[in-house]
């Protein structure tokens, strides 16, 4: 990884870190007494998660009748939440896979947490896939396994089946990728633990007895690259397939060819927003400001601006296509979205996803922690509403006006949604306590290219060269 990088680029590791310091800083999160704040946060998240589990059990006991869905609106918060969570997961894969292939060094600061987020989000999403069915105990029918039911076999024409494959592949690959990255870091933690202690044994088990030999490193690098290669198409495919659930149907507002790219962009958009939300808190609490710098945040904000604009363009394109199609049903679906009973959801979506990210054209806002945090929340609200708008407003008024109804959630649905947030946060908090939140090995690999003291030395070296005569004035950052 140690190729040349322009000295004008901002360093990605600050604080004159040495390798030891990096290890110290990051492992510190997993050692020492448990903080009160962490306990409190985990306790609250755990309670919320338990309430979610209660609502899930309630649903299984009584049936989906406990939700607000009806004969016309068959999917609502369940699938909205599913798509939302899957979308959130996308940033992790994008960062770890595509950015790895593109050799974007800034990814090293955030990839570990983003990948963890992916996995936890997919777990939450998976819950909805299982539980939106009327008979979750029979959900295994969806798997094409040899059975005694004669000619009954899964329907390979159904996008929902593709979904099952897509999501399960996604979870598997993401999990492997994440874990592979963790192996050398587990070894590092193990090496710092007292030999033979439970802690030592645990991490030793988890790192598969990693000793850091050259062969290990070589294999590890190769595996990472292979997994990155495998994961890359998944970034595009998973949400494309999720969008097929809608795009291949005949429901006006769902049935559009623009959905796959629009969904992928939307997923990355919301995923990065979630990474921002989590990392802004984590870097502060876990004192990782030197590793997750403003530069990282700015890079991610740029992605948010790009994808947000793509999503917004898709919204406008949809409106155009609906008008241009000449199809009465199609035109009404979009008129109803914007001005029908759920107009407020549509305009929340529009303002959060299309209008709000445009603030990121301003560099000052891009680099503002508070604004970024605020924006990341807004984006996630917007993206939730996007899915709600697509699902509920398309369904509630379709072909036959006699069947037009409305939808509002019940406490059970709200409980499950909030509960998945609790599950997600609980898992993330556990992760932040027991796992290294920043990839130690990977961040070390960029230290000597992107560490601030090396950048300073590099500047000293090139200062006299004609190309860097006026380097100081072109610097966008301050070397300390």
């Amino acid at each position, binding site marked *: 990884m140690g190729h040349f990088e322009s000295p004008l680029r901002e360093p990605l590791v600050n604080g004159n870190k040495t390798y030891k310091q990096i290890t110290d800083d990051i492992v510190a999160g997993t050692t020492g007494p448990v903080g009160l704040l962490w306990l409190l946060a985990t306790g609250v998240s755990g309670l919320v998660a338990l309430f979610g589990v209660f609502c899930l059990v309630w649903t299984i006991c009584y049936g989906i009748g406990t939700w607000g869905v009806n*004969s016309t609106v*068959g999917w609502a918060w369940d699938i909205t939440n599913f798509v939302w969570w899957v979308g959130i997961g996308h940033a992790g894969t994008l960062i770890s896979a595509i950015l790895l292939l593109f050799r974007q060094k800034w990814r090293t600061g955030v990839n570990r947490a983003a990948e963890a987020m992916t996995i936890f989000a997919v777990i939450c999403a998976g819950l909805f896939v299982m539980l939106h069915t009327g008979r979750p105990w029979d959900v295994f029918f969806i798997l094409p396994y040899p059975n005694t039911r004669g000619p009954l076999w899964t329907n390979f024409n159904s996008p929902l089946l593709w979904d099952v494959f897509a999501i399960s592949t996604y979870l598997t690959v993401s999990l492997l990728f994440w874990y592979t990255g963790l192996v050398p870091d587990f070894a590092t933690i193990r090496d710092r633990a007292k030999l033979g202690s439970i802690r030592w044994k645990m991490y030793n088990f988890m790192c598969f007895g990693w000793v850091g030999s050259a062969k290990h490193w070589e294999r590890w690098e190769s595996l990472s690259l292979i997994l990155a290669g495998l994961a890359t198409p998944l970034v595009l495919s998973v949400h494309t397939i999720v969008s097929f659930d809608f795009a*291949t149907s005949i429901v006006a507002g769902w049935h559009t060819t623009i959905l796959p790219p629009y969904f992928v962009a939307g997923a990355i958009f919301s995923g990065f927003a979630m990474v921002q939300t989590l990392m802004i808190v984590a870097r502060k609490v876990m004192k990782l400001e030197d590793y997750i710098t403003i530069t990282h945040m700015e890079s991610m904000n740029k992605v948010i601006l790009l994808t947000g604009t793509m999503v917004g363009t898709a919204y406008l394109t949809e409106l155009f296509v609906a008008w241009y199609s000449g199809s009465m049903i199609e035109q*009404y679906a979009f008129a109803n979205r914007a001005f029908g009973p759920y107009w407020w959801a549509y305009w929340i979506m529009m303002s959060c996803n299309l209008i709000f990210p445009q603030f990121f054209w301003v560099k000052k806002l891009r680099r503002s922690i508070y604004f970024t945090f605020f924006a990341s929340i807004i984006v996630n609200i917007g993206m939730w509403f996007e899915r709600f708008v697509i699902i509920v407003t398309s369904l509630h008024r379709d*072909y036959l006006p*006699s069947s037009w109804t409305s939808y509002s959630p019940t406490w059970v649905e709200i409980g499950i949604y909030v509960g998945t947030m609790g599950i997600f946060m609980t898992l993330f908090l556990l992760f932040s306590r027991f796992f290294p939140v920043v990839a130690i090995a990977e961040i070390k690999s960029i230290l000597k290219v992107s560490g601030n003291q090396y950048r300073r030395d590099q500047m000293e070296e090139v200062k006299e060269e004609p190309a860097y005569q006026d380097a100081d004035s072109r610097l966008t950052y301050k070397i300390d």
Partner: protein
Amino acid sequence: MSNNKYWQSLEQRDETPEFKEQAAKEFQDEMPVFDYVDDTTKVESTGRRDFLKMMGFSISAAAIASSCKIPVKKAIPYVFNLDQSSRIPELVPGIADYFATSYAEGGDFSSILVKTRENRPIKIEGNTAAPFVKGGTTARAQASVLSLYDVARLTQPKKKGESITWEQADSEIAKKLTKISAEGGKIVIISNTNYSLATQKALATFKAKYPTTQVVTYDPVSLYAIRKANQITLGESIIPTYLFDKAKVIAGFNCDFLGGFVNATENAKRYSANRVPTKENPNMSRHYHFQSYVSITSASADYKHSIKPSQEKAVLMALYNKIAASTGASSLANVTISDLQESVNKLAAELLANRGESIVISGTNNVDIQLLTNAINAMLGNYGSTIDTAAALNLKQGNDEALKALSDDTSVKAVLLLNSNPVYDSVFADKIKNIITKAELSVSFADRLDESAELVQYITPDNHYLESWDVLEPKKGYISFVQPTINQLFDTRQAFVSLSEFAGATTTAYDLIKSAGEGFTTGFIASLGNTSWESALQTGFINNVSESASGSANLSATVSAINTKLPTSNGIEVIFYESVALADGKEANNPFLQEMPDPITRTSWDNFIALPYTFAINNGIKAMSQDSTVKTAKITLANKEVVLPVIISYGQAQDTVAIALGYGRSQGVGPAAFGSGQNVYPFLTYDNGTVSYSAGSAAYETLKGTHKMGMSQRYHTLQEDNNLYNRPRRFRNNIVKEANLEQFRKDDTAGNEDRAKIKDHLTTLYKGYDSPGHHWSMAVDLNSCIGCAACVISCNIENNVPVIGREEMSNTRSMHWLRIDRYYSGDPDNPDVAFQPLMCQHCDNAPCENVCPVNATNHSSEGLNQMAYNRCIGTKYCANNCPFKVRKFNWYDYQGNDSFGGWNDPTDASYMYDNLTRMVLNPDVTVRSRGVIEKCSFCVQRIQASKLTAKTEGRPLKDGDVKTACQTACPTNSISFGDRNDKNSEIHRIFFDNGRNYHLYEEQHFMTNVGYQVKIRNTDEEPEFTFVGAKEDKA
């Protein structure tokens, strides 16, 4: 006695040592016990340790084996009593038996066939052999089979709440009656209309024994005025048969002759016969209707006008004068009816042009109004041509004056309530309540603890009609039999047997009707010729009604009897009407009927205040509600008030409101009836010899409170609601296609012109499904559909459709496989109405099929879209992708499935949970579990049954062999079903030769197997689809 010894073998004879040894042993071979005992303990004899080991093992094995709970399976044994009253020669499990019997309730009568499976009645079908109707029933008749299995039925006689034996009841009641009779005390039998010959015979016996007996007949919804007016016009107190099929112009005045009134099934059949124009015969009757509230009859009319009840007389007088001017009859006092005069002129002109081929009919229980219609009909010469007075109806014989007299009678010593519930549904409820509580003896024959039965001393519960014998004469010259289709479920007894028993004549129902039969059939038996009693019973009826109509009227007597004083109109007028589902409320505890959406307002489980549109908007009521929460309002009338939810009924006359009767029952009536709506019978008034079903000077007040209403349709028009001010709204006029008769005469594809172009564009890249054998298809004629919902209930019963209750209906989770959508167009204050029955369209290119991940819904080679319930995991994806929203999801465990334990429907709609109630389930149709999708199957069980019959008979299936449940119930033949591959089938003709046939969203290439036929209105104006009120609905 010989001493011979028989030996079994030579060894035995010879008594070999081997034989002796064997004979001494209990088992031939050594028990292999010691194979399982280890060597160290293996000794010659069983040691102590081994004994203990074995004992320990046996005890624990026995304990384990006996402690395993073996599930108790309940089975219905094929045990039946082959006595005289159970006339089942043999019973083949799995094969249905049909019995001819009759359904009679209120103004509704049908000769029916009852389908029984393993001795359980499970379905009602119209008797296709019966004259006049030839199949087809009302929704209530369809639902009545469920009432048999009603958990609220009384299971034995009661005395003041305590169960007693029949012997005790008979002796005590007879003793009291004898005493009262001996003292000359008055005995009153209060009965609803009774045209049972057996009951009449029993009553005669009773009267002979107790001469102080008086029978008072009343009807909750009375038509006494018709009989009274006919006494003047025809000299006979009758209700004639109206031959709507012979009428070219029909003028209805507040008369719901298709849904309520009297004899609705026959009326509907006759009416629809003349309402379907074809290419060869492009004619149909023209129907004018002057209405105060919207009934299914007014909804079917071509021209409808909103009038207040108080205006009806004036309008009829104006019509009379207009016609009298042309026919030369004496005219009545001049009336001004301002804006309606033009319509009346138009109607008068058409009536005059169709003399003898028209009907003027009013359902208002007012003698003057009835006399006016009689006079108009007489002037037009309709008596004897479209009004058959010879075939007089015996339905609705209630005598309002007799009831009035009774209510003022203070000398009543004994009251017997025969098939009546006067404390609930009579106009003199309070006074009769007084009579009952003061009487020395009060007896009710009610089958449940209804409002009157609560007050009586003795309840001697009557059988359900499906357990009964009877002979009915619903129409002069027409006899219809009632025979039991199941042994009595409970210790109940038919009312006429009880009456005989009280009179000391011990008899059985069968003997009584046989003897009644001998008496009454002297005329009929003779006319039967060679037909035996048994074969008459098997046919179900004896018909001696002449096909040709007869009758003549005395016009001058009629006209001179008319009191021309016009009623004054002040304030808000309230109309009390019979709803299509519950009618007078007798079957209020039938959950199928409670859940049946009202054809007009599409609400269920409650009655409501029907408000006119403009009036409602002015009172701050939202026309389009986002959810099922509606406002409530208070109606105050003569110091009585009622609070009910308000529903806008488009077409309700301005400054009037309408409320359905039959709701607001007491707890004893049953769980479905209790808590549903409010009772408005107390608002009825007795006015000048008749009961009045409308009243003026009411006060209306919208309340703050709200009510969650069972609503099946929240959006009422085909007009898009784009919420944009001042923007033109568009109309989805491809869903219900309409044209007027003139357009149809010019072009038989009128209203359907776009179909040719659509068909040209139908191409696909994909290989469709082949249907090489049968290709089942259905056609629905929107022209003859009157929205009566008989098909809906028939489908419910046939297919075990669950009942879900008010809360779930308000959550718009109706499970009905077949629903009737209702759309309005035109002026919201007086709109045109279109009904569209909607069931699974069985698309050949079905959107639901390719999205199911587990192949639970798939396509058959016969064009059916089928469901494998057990394969369904309930993703609801198919339901979302269904453009017609006919796929229904089992949100809760509605059927009380045992495997869900106590985790059933938390909304407590447990109407189908009882084992007794579940006896109604059709064993040929799977009961669906929670969490699966279900939908119309085109009655695939019937298709299979017909195929099997054809196969065993060794013949190909022919058109008409398969009839779906909705089709058989339809009284107007709107639904056709068959194999479209069969070139000679009716469905083939409709699909390929009928210019009116179209398919829903055909341009989307769903290739539906259900066709609809364009609705033709017999109006001079072309249909319009707009639905914009004078005020934009932004309230």
